């Protein structure tokens, strides 16, 4: 069975060119980037090249990029780092975030609350965007940080980050944005965003899992998170994962060069898929479709079905997509994002996310346009709730 992978927001395959760039750093170029000898110098050079490549993707300077173990570490480091550095000696601290952040941000904020930091979770509109006036109203004298994601992982909706950056700058607050889902899909420029901190993940941009990066604008006080040796100026110790960092650098370079063309191509495919599903499936609705979105993502509610059942049925037929958020057992939990945009639980459970990527072809879209409508139809034909629902209307 040839499988179709429409879950690129979860992870992406390592690009062959990325893999090729990485391979020497597992064998001949195995040096520790901190070593003084030639082996170490060559590894150091590779890490610094990667830093420049990642910096170039987001319009930053290389010394503003810190490599991490991934997006989650970058988010944690940014949030705890800023709050701990800035709140030293202050009796009160306050952070503003949104209700639809990734768990790496939400749970970091909840952990801060346990430590006595106040957190405001901004609501979002039906289209998944925050209200800038609500943001302004949420700012208090003791506010230190605004952390709001660039693009949402479940719907692809893009927040008005430039305005948020401006509001933060005017209020003299630090602004962190989780750009894990936007980097490589839409332009990300830390200068245009006026971001002080920005998180990236390697495996969402065709680099391997286990590597990410945090942009920290020069001069931003951030308390370090890990303690150890002198790696990355002692600020983020731990022997560099040279091969993965090289991969992230190469992936960033490919993403930067291909961005415009791939965004147009994938966006075209996404639109065909989305329009096709809406045309072929009665009572299907796009979530967040009215907001600016990343070009690869569509989130659709198929009223009257269980998204979990549709997901499994499609996977058994070879089409991989996703729904909500998986808990540690792998079972599907109701999506906090879809709940936040106001979907009732049944509608949230009836929603699937299709996220396309570099490997997506027109043929795959055509195949999906066959099996998704027929499977939704089959599920509805045996769904007690859908029949009840239709007979009412």
């Amino acid at each position, binding site marked *: *069975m*040839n*499988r*179709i*992978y429409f879950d690129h927001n979860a992870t992406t*395959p390592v*690009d*062959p*060119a990325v893999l090729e760039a990485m391979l020497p750093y597992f064998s001949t170029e195995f040096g520790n980037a901190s070593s003084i000898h030639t082996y170490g110098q060559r590894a150091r050079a590779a890490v610094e090249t990667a830093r420049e490549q990642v910096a170039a993707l987001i319009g930053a300077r290389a010394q503003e990029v810190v490599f991490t173990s991934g997006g989650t570490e970058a988010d944690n480091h940014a949030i705890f780092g800023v709050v701990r550095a800035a709140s030293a000696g202050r009796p009160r601290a306050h952070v503003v975030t949104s209700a639809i952040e990734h768990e790496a941000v939400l749970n970091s904020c909840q952990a801060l609350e346990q430590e006595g930091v106040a957190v405001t979770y901004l609501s979002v509109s039906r289209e998944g965007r925050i209200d800038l006036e609500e943001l302004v109203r949420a700012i208090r004298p003791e506010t230190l940080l605004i952390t709001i994601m660039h693009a949402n992982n479940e719907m692809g909706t893009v927040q008005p980050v430039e305005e948020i950056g401006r509001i933060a700058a005017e209020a003299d607050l630090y602004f962190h944005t989780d750009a894990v889902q936007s980097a490589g899909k839409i332009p990300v420029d830390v200068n245009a965003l006026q971001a002080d901190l920005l998180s990236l993940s390697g495996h969402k941009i065709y680099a391997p899992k286990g590597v990410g990066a945090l942009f920290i604008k020069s001069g931003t006080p951030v308390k370090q998170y890990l303690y150890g040796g002198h790696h990355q100026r002692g600020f983020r110790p731990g022997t560099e994962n040279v091969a993965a960092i090289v991969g992230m650098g190469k992936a960033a370079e*490919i993403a930067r*060069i*291909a961005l415009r063309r*791939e965004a147009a191509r994938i966006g075209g495919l996404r639109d065909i898929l989305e329009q096709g599903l809406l045309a072929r499936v009665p009572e299907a609705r796009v979530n967040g479709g009215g907001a600016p979105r990343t070009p690869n993502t569509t989130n659709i509610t198929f009223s009257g*079905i*269980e998204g*979990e*059942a*549709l997901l*499994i*049925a499609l*996977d*058994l*037929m*070879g*089409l991989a997509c996703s729904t909500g958020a998986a*808990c*540690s*057992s*792998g*079972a*599907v*939990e109701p999506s906090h994002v879809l709940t936040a945009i106001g979907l009732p639980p049944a509608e949230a459970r009836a929603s699937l996310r299709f996220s396309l990527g*570099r*490997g*997506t*072809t027109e*043929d*795959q879209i*055509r*195949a999906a346009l*066959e*099996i998704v409508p*027929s499977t939704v139809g*089959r*599920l509805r034909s*045996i*769904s007690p709730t859908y029949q009840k629902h239709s007979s009412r209307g």
Partner: protein
Amino acid sequence: MTTQLQLDSLPAVAAETQPGLIAVAMSGGVDSSTAAAMLQQQGHPVVGLTMQLWNQRRLPELQVSSSAQHRCCSLDDVYDAKRVAQHLNFPHYVVNFEEEFQERVVRPFVRQYLAGRTPIACTNCNTDVKFEPLLRMARQIGAQRLATGHYARIRKNANSGRYELLRALDDSKDQSYFLWGLTQEQLSCSDFPLGELTKDEVRDLARKLSLPVAEKPESMELCFVPNGNYVQFIHAYARAEGQPLQDREGEIVTQDGVVIGRHTGIHNYTIGQRKGLGFAAGKPIYVLAIDPQKNRIVVGEDDALRTKLLEIEGVNWISLAEPLDASPSTPEGGSSAIRGHAKIRHKHEPAPATIEALPGGRARISFETPQRAVTPGQAAVFYDGDTVLAGGWIR
């Protein structure tokens, strides 16, 4: 420039669901794992489903002890099921039925105890979760049948045209007592591959197939109740629901209504219980009845615990249609008596009895000899030989 990725290719996903696909309810234990392996060996395409039923985080106060491992809802068991599926190379998914389990099993379990009854959560879980939403899920994902690791048998009777539920060949493992609620429709699309095997044979088979769970110990307790301490669970659950149990004390009385002591709350007692009651006139006394209206525990001697007659409700007739019309002349419009054996709790040896259908989905069971501790909330299952004739909840 981007490089062509490996994963693109032809649009050849399967256009249809797989014919003959059987979903197997996998708990991560040796029984359901072996059941899945057997079906696969017989040549059926198999998909494993593990239900996420209860989140231990719901009642954090019960999590102090780490002995909440080896429970059917624990992550370890989910991973075990996944390892088995990987080992045998068939697809496996975890499906979330926390809401259904909470609504249909846990809440009724607590309510029944608070109403002075002694519930069987496993029967509710079978009838209302496994063979309802899980079976529906199986159908939705394209499976035609649902198999479980239960020790019981299903047979279609060519004469009556009905699906029959039979005891397992291994008497010591028989679980038909927990399956009496299955409808004809549910039985018609269910498989119990272990029904003809002994536990030892199942273990041997698991070892032969090198299943990663071949040596896993059995779980005997209720999966959602840590340490089997159901009283503690009920208190924690009630607190979490915002209705903490307090001041539920009441009187312990004899059958003549003489108050002989105080009880700590009727949910702490079950019919036939002796512990914590002391003695009367030098003889051991037992709980005879629980009276939720008066909040009383009625106690007495062992003799008074025995009764020949009981009534069941919510009766499900399996190997024959409800025989109400068999003899319209009988009083109350019930049926004539059918002879067989009845079992009134999991560890009860089926005893000779007759059953008569009553109107309103009820039935009357009359034992030849008095049976000890007939307990409201438990089930009575009526057998004709190995075949389950009917079952119902003891009133």
